[in-house]
């Protein structure tokens, strides 16, 4: 099944889209779907698997994006004098990792004070952190101009692969596809590992988990750091794809959008979250704009006056808010429910017997 999906994504989808004239814009949406899928998978670790509500996830995305953007534009010349910036597009591949690690570091720094405290303070602290990061990036143009403030950073160097500059959405699509597969692979491994099982244990019952010898603080902190890592990585890709970033791309609405993806798809369920991310991204970038355009056409040509106020592209908050409430109330497990892996008890008894025999 995975091979079939891979074939569709790598060959069929780009090929099917290549016939029309809106090829690039179609691939652009597909690329964004990929970016959001990875982010949602990252948030799924924090919210879905470890049960920690993070409402400022976009902060880590912003940190990753700015990490690359500052060094891939002449901006870094303002405070670093030992080499000449912008760095070449070859460094992009390294920066995917660096951006992720920087974001992860911030995740740990934020997690240390908050995760020690019992209670739901995490939600409000992350909410605040998301907002603070935006304010800080918005104002770090003085005394030393680091982020260029509200003007944002433009002409970010696009990545280079074997001497070819990647400029089009169709090229980015493959970059994102490879990264997404990598992320998926890592998450699948993590899910089944000891730490993945501890996350779930902590989510289900902290006291019982502690009694089984799980260190609550460490387990939560790992979830937080891994989530931030993926978010930061995608930030780097986002910055290089857009070639322009400013603080307005990283608002609370973005954080909530990613949360909607996770809740809609099914908290903790990897296939669910992929579905959720794809649905919400396409809804956000394609459907809402098209319906809005259609409504505008209708009120221009058809004489049915639909006030601009109700234009669906402005109603994201309404739609997302409603989705969150409805899913919380009626379908808290999401579209595709998380599956518990069935453990074959024979495997364990045999292994146990073998171990005994060898003794």
């Amino acid at each position, binding site marked *: 099944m995975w091979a079939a999906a891979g074939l569709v994504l790598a060959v069929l989808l780009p090929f099917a889209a290549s016939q029309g004239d809106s090829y690039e814009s179609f691939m652009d949406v597909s690329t964004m779907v990929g970016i959001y899928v990875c982010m949602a998978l990252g948030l799924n670790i924090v919210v879905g698997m470890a049960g920690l509500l993070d409402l400022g996830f976009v902060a880590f995305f912003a940190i990753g994006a700015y990490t690359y953007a500052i060094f891939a534009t002449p901006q870094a010349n303002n405070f670093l004098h030992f080499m000449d910036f912008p760095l070449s597009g070859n460094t992009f591949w390294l920066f995917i990792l660096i951006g992720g690690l920087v974001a992860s570091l911030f995740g740990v720094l934020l997690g240390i004070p*908050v995760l020690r405290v019992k209670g739901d303070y995490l*939600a409000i602290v992350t909410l605040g952190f998301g907002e603070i990061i935006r304010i800080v990036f918005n104002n770090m143009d003085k005394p030393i101009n680091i982020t260029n403030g509200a003007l944002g950073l433009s002409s970010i160097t696009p990545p280079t692969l074997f001497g070819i500059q990647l400029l089009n959405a169709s090229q980015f699509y493959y970059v994102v596809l490879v990264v997404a597969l990598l992320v998926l692979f890592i998450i699948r491994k993590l899910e089944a590992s000891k730490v993945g099982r501890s996350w779930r244990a902590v989510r289900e019952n902290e006291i019982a988990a502690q009694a089984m010898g799980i260190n609550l603080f460490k387990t939560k902190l790992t979830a937080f750091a891994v989530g931030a890592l993926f978010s930061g990585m995608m930030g780097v890709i986002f910055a290089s794809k857009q070639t322009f970033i400013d603080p307005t791309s990283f608002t609370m609405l973005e954080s909530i959008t990613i*949360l909607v993806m996770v809740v809609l798809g099914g908290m903790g369920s990897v296939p669910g979250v992929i579905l959720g991310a794809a649905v919400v991204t396409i809804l956000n970038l394609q459907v809402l704009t098209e319906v809005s355009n259609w409504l505008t056409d209708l009120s221009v040509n058809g004489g049915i006056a639909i006030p601009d106020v109700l234009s669906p592209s402005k109603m994201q908050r309404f739609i997302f808010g409603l989705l*969150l409430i409805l899913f919380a109330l009626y379908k808290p497990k999401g579209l595709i429910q998380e599956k518990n892996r069935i453990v074959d008890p024979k495997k364990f008894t045999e292994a146990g017997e073998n171990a005994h025999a060898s003794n």
Partner: protein
Amino acid sequence: MLENILRTLPQVLFDGITLGTVYAVIALGYTMVYGILKLINFAHGEIFMTGAFIGTAILLAFSSLGWIGTLPIIILVLVAMFLTAGVTGAIGVGIERIAYRPLRKAPKLIALISAIGISFLLQDLVRFTTEFANDGNFYLIGPELFKSNINVPLSKMASFLSDASFKTSFLFVLVTAVALMIILDVFVNKTKWGMAMRAVAQDRDTAALMGVNVNKTISLTFFIGSALGGATGVLFAVQYGTIDPYIGFILGLKAFTAAVLGGIGNIRGAVLGGLIIGVVEMFAAANLSTLTNHVIGAEYKDVFAFIILILVLLFKPEGLLGKALHEKV
């Protein structure tokens, strides 16, 4: 440098206390709901914002009826506050009934998600209602009610101080907010309903066994918290003029910080926390660039509430007036 700071201190205190009383009354709503349900009511900031809009709309209606100028302003504002409090109180009860009550036994995470959903929904409902009514503008400017400024000639009393001034609405905001807090304190500590609220907060099941109607008590808590939030919204609109649908979010965040600082669940603590945050924020706004030699400016003032929140969680998670809770297994 210090002289400068001292010189402007009285003005900072006036502004800080005004802002602080607003935070304090909103913090009461957070603290009451948290005390009784152990749930962060994310929608509370939005209730405050909705209150600001409803109140301003009522005042604008009064203004178009020509009542402003003919009737005493204080009475008009009090009427607007009273009506608004009724509406937002009802909204609060409705939110609890629809979005929180069915989830009372569900994991905390699900209830929080529902709360954040409500918060977003309210923001957008207010936005497009305002845009409908106000020619496509999502912000609202209230009628100017208190035009005069009061000057306090401090420089005559002490030469190291400079004059301070405040809008007359400052006095009104202060007196009303303090009155609201005293009424609430008496209500919670002295009445039968207040006793029921404290009992439910302490142990819901035992309270039910003692004959307390738990659902009614929780509804009442939401009504009072939301009515206070809405009334404060009106005060905020009167004091600061322009309002938009997104004011509730960051203000709610600060008010929540105030509640945590004072000790969540503790009503007097919330008031103390609100005042501290208000004064610290205004102090930062006035003096940050002097203190840091223009490296950091007043635009970082919003960061302070957040830093306080982190520090409290690190060093005194039970808050200034709260008691450390022991985990029940």
